[in-house]
């Protein structure tokens, strides 16, 4: 019963099928340009929101490190210790792995430091100069954790040369609390946003697929395998992902441009030195690849649910 159908070779069929699917998947969004634009914008927004949060987080991380540095440690030296001994002690401290820098301050320097505070300076100017003890001021490396600092201080405080150690415990604990809160909020919003993005993304892609329901059904009926049926729709999803990823990156660039000036003026007021960073080239590439994978996956999932839902007719 077979006629001279000249059934083509399997591999060349496969390649041919993919080529066709790519060009079809590419053309599909252009059949209804306005609708596709809306879909792409929606997807772009879906990618934009978590991307924005992520970029902010990257910036905050950097900021946090510079803040941690500000809590320097003051070691008050016993008045019995002379200047030479102090010098040796300073060198010992400098050699410790967590210490970035250390220096001896005399009482004038301390007063000078105190007088930077507007309210205190008035008081200080009214106080007759008085002997303050010698003091070593220590800065630790940015990576140092609060626990490491705790250990460092405990070790020093048993040293007989040390009268008292003061460090801004409060600053560090406040910073920790702030970081924890932001982390918690970031976690909650990441969770929420992933939910949101999933719902909207699935809905958007599913709508796009449902629009082609009859087409899917017909392809099945004229004998296309399920892989053939869905192929061009998967490519369509991929193209949507690429477009949406690009637009999301553009959105990020625009909103960081906007934010930069605002943040800069704020930061100057607080005397912190940071600059807002956008996305690097690698990060942009990563974003587009991820968005492409996500839409591909979403298309795949809603295609299989479409297959399961297929009513008999």
């Amino acid at each position: 019963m077979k006629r001279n159908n000249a059934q083509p070779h399997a591999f060349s069929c496969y390649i041919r099928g993919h080529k066709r699917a790519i060009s079809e998947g590419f053309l599909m969004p252009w059949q209804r340009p306005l609708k596709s634009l809306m879909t792409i914008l929606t997807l772009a927004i879906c990618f934009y929101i978590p991307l924005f949060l992520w970029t902010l987080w990257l910036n905050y991380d950097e900021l946090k490190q510079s803040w941690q540095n500000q809590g320097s440690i003051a070691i008050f030296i016993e008045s019995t210790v002379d200047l030479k001994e102090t010098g040796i002690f300073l060198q010992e401290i400098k050699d410790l792995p967590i210490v970035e820098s250390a220096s001896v301050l005399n009482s004038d320097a301390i007063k000078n430091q105190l007088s930077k505070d507007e309210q205190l300076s008035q008081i200080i100017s009214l106080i007759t100069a008085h002997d303050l003890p010698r003091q070593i001021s220590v800065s630790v490396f940015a990576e140092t954790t609060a626990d490491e600092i705790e250990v460092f201080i405990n070790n020093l405080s048993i040293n007989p040369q040390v009268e008292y150690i003061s460090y801004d415990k409060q600053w560090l604990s406040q910073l920790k609390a702030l970081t924890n809160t932001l982390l918690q909020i970031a976690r909650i919003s990441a969770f929420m946003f992933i939910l949101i993005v999933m719902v909207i993304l699935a809905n958007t892609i599913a709508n796009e697929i449902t629009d082609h329901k009859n087409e899917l059904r017909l392809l099945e009926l004229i004998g296309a395998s399920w892989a053939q049926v869905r192929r061009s729709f998967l490519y369509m999803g991929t193209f949507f992902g690429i477009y949406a990823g690009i637009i999301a990156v553009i959105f990020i660039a625009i909103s960081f441009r906007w934010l930069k000036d605002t943040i800069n003026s704020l930061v100057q007021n607080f005397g912190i030195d940071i600059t807002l960073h956008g996305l690097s080239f690698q990060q942009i590439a990563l974003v587009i690849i991820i968005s492409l994978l996500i839409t591909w996956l979403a298309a795949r999932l809603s295609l299989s649910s479409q297959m399961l839902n297929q009513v008999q007719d």
Partner: protein
Amino acid sequence: MINFNRVSKSYGKDNKALRDVSFTVEAGEMLFLTGHSGAGKTTILKLLMLMQDVSYGQIKVNGQDISCMKSRKIPAYRRNIGMIFQDHRLLENKTVLDNIALSLQIRGYSDTLSYKKANAALVQVGIAEKANFYPQELSSGQQQRVGIARAFVAKPDIILADEPTGNLDPDLSLDLMKIFEKLNSLGITILIASHDLFLIKRLQKRVLVLEKGELIDDFSPQKNMYTP
């Protein structure tokens, strides 16, 4: 080749579309399926196409029971069948030519060959000048002919035609029947559901008559003819 063995199909409880239908169609046969509106003609074709599941009984095609076919074998099975749908079912976003070529592309033919064959098929059904139109720009009869061309272009083993001349005038219907007869002479089995008695009378083929889901008559061309 096609064998219905006491096949029933019911939708819900009291809605039987087919009752206990049995018949056999030999390979290379051409026959008509007729009956009043709602008799179950389309249902028989849909069962063969695996668009619906059999409720009771067994359908064998080429000796294989199709109701227990593995789902990954269904596409290959369907590629052996060309179906003409009563409601045309053309893809709106493809031109007439693309619609027909699709049927070949799915079977793995190259684009060049697909379009060559598709063009030839369009000429055969007489709407070569509409090749680059979209289906919704055609009249119903033209759409129907596109559906016919799509069904036979890949030369499948079986052609199932559901009311292929419902939107065509008698002259065109006869022209199309000539195409079917030519395909039949190549060895293709052809099953035509139709209530065009004029046509059925003219063609002198075997006729199965359905009435409310039951097969009430089976006229062979050799035996006395079906005269309604």
